[in-house]
């Protein structure tokens, strides 16, 4: 493994234990064979429809999956294999989480003390004030309660909170919805700057256009599986892309004709045996019904039997 790899997620799977009709215990495998890599200085966008497992990936990386879930697979951070205990040591320090909405702030506590993690040392106050002014947050933000923040302010509060320590990796789960385009771009610009200084960013989003503007690489999730890891530049032409689903996403972009793909992502329980995309695929063949290996094509990876 190259030393420059900051984060490597290998064959991650996540399953939930639930009860069917109240009695029979069942295991619901919602993530299977998830792969993604983030190098130092790189910003990788994870894109995929709602329910494709993006948030679960973020929650796995931060060790905040719900109690009735199990995660398997290998996660490496700076080449070191992580376990629950190591994640516990890294989170909040080397791995920072930027959540999606203001509900991730305690409604009964002032914003400032939450950003400082209730630390009462002068150093924390200084750092927090510095970050607030760096991210253009008015000084009074310190004394506001979460419900008094605008969407854009909340986003910058989370950024400040992430930067209170010196993280090497930022995991941002949908940090832009609810922001108008300018504010969204502005907020992503900060992530880009962080990556340019040598950090790594895993940006989770369902806005491909926005992701393409700032990211180096794109990981495409479909029904809990990574179907392709491509370079942002591959999206300049359909031919450079590898997976039929990615191509479909490409065709759905406004500049490429807004073409919708018929069908929907399968529900966890009705996932097909072989390729998860088979039922919607335009180039489906009998090869797709058996287990598909991950292939490397043009330096990107793809999970498709007939990818070229």
């Amino acid at each position, binding site marked *: 493994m190259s030393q420059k790899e900051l984060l490597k997620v290998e064959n991650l799977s996540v399953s939930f234990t639930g009860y069917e009709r109240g009695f029979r215990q069942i295991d619901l495998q919602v993530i299977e064979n998830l792969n993604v890599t983030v190098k130092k200085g790189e910003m990788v966008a994870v894109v995929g429809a709602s329910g494709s497992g993006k948030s679960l990936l973020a*929650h796995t990386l*931060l*060790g*905040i999956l*719900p*109690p009735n879930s199990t995660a398997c697979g290998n996660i490496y951070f700076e080449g070191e294999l992580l376990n629950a205990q190591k994640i*516990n*040591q890294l*989170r*909040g*320090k080397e791995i*920072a*989480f930027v*959540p999606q*909405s203001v*509900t*991730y*702030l*305690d*409604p*009964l*506590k002032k914003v400032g003390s939450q950003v400082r*993690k*209730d630390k009462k040392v002068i150093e924390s106050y200084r750092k927090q004030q510095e970050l607030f002014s760096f991210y253009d947050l008015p000084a009074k933000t310190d004394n506001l*309660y979460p*419900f*008094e923040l605008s969407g854009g302010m909340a986003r910058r509060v989370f950024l400040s*909170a992430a930067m209170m320590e010196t993280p090497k990796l930022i995991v941002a789960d949908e940090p832009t919805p609810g922001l108008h385009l300018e504010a969204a771009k502005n907020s992503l610009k900060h992530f880009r700057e962080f990556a340019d200084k040598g950090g790594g960013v895993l940006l989770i989003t369902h806005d491909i256009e926005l992701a393409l503007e700032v990211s180096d690489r794109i990981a495409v999730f479909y029904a809990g599986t990574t179907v392709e890891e491509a370079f942002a530049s591959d999206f300049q032409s359909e031919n450079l892309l590898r997976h039929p689903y990615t191509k479909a996403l490409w065709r759905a972009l406004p500049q490429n004709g807004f073409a919708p793909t018929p069908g929907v992502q399968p529900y966890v329980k009705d996932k097909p045996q072989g390729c998860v995309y088979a039922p919607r695929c335009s180039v489906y063949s009998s090869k797709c019904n058996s287990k598909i290996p991950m292939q490397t094509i043009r330096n990107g990876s793809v999970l498709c039997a007939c990818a070229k």
Partner: protein
Amino acid sequence: MKTGHAVAVYLVKILVKLLLVLLAVSIICFVLISVSPVDPIRMYVGEVGMRNIQPETLAKLESYFGLDTPLTIRYFNWLSDFVRGDMGTSLIYRQPVIDVIGVRFVNSFALMLTAWLFSGILGFFLGVIAGIRRGRLTDKLVKGYSLLLASTPTFWLALVMLMVFAVWLKWFPIGLSVPIGVDASKVTIFDTLHHLFLPALTLSVIGVANIALHTREKMIDVMAEDYVLYAKARGKSTFSILRHHGIRNVILPAITLQFASIGEIFGGSVLVEQVFSYPGLGQAAVNAGLSGDSPLLLGIAVISAALVFSGNFIANALYGIIDPRIRRGLKND
């Protein structure tokens, strides 16, 4: 608008609501008692007297008790006396209702306050612990205890307590609030506490179950909230999360519940006072009801409604003062 001012307006608003509710309660009780078969004259002269009564005497008594005046006039007379602190005279105790209630209220208040504080504090701690240790042994014990007690009838538990601790073990007196045959001036605080203990314990033990179950549920919800996940994701320890986020978010609904549950404690105290022959408001209410003492019944109904609704009033007021969303929201209105 200044925050202090806004909060004051908010408090006045709920206070006005409280008064309106009390007014409504008094009207309803007044009407109910008037249409009920309770007959103050029969009560006053007794069954035998009733059989031998002269029609003139009956007419005199009817006008004395005001039965010949219309209901609305009677209500307004009662109300105008009530606001001047005169609730009439109790027919069974032959004393002003206000005095009867005064003495009884102190007894009941001691009982309810002890049970209320004890069950509130213990229930809260048990609930918090069970909530964060969800599914583990501690949780199962707390949950088992609470479910068992929540489904235990209050009077039955009171009887068991009485049998075990008073009759068999003889640790506590079997009833009343003071020792029998002891001069009132010689009754010590120890005697009072000794008599208070069993009824208060019974009431607390039942109350704990409810509070613990509610707090447990709330704690589980809070621990699954986004802000707790975020705090974890930022490397905070469970203890720190509990201290800075958990308790804070659970205590507000817990306090509200605690104040709103005064009604339940009151209801429980009626039964417990009956079993322990403890001379409190609840026991007086039962006596008044059974013997048709309408002035006393009415007085107790209004006073206990005031008590229960004050609990709700305080709960609402606390929300306005503690929860920043309401406190600051009022200012921004």
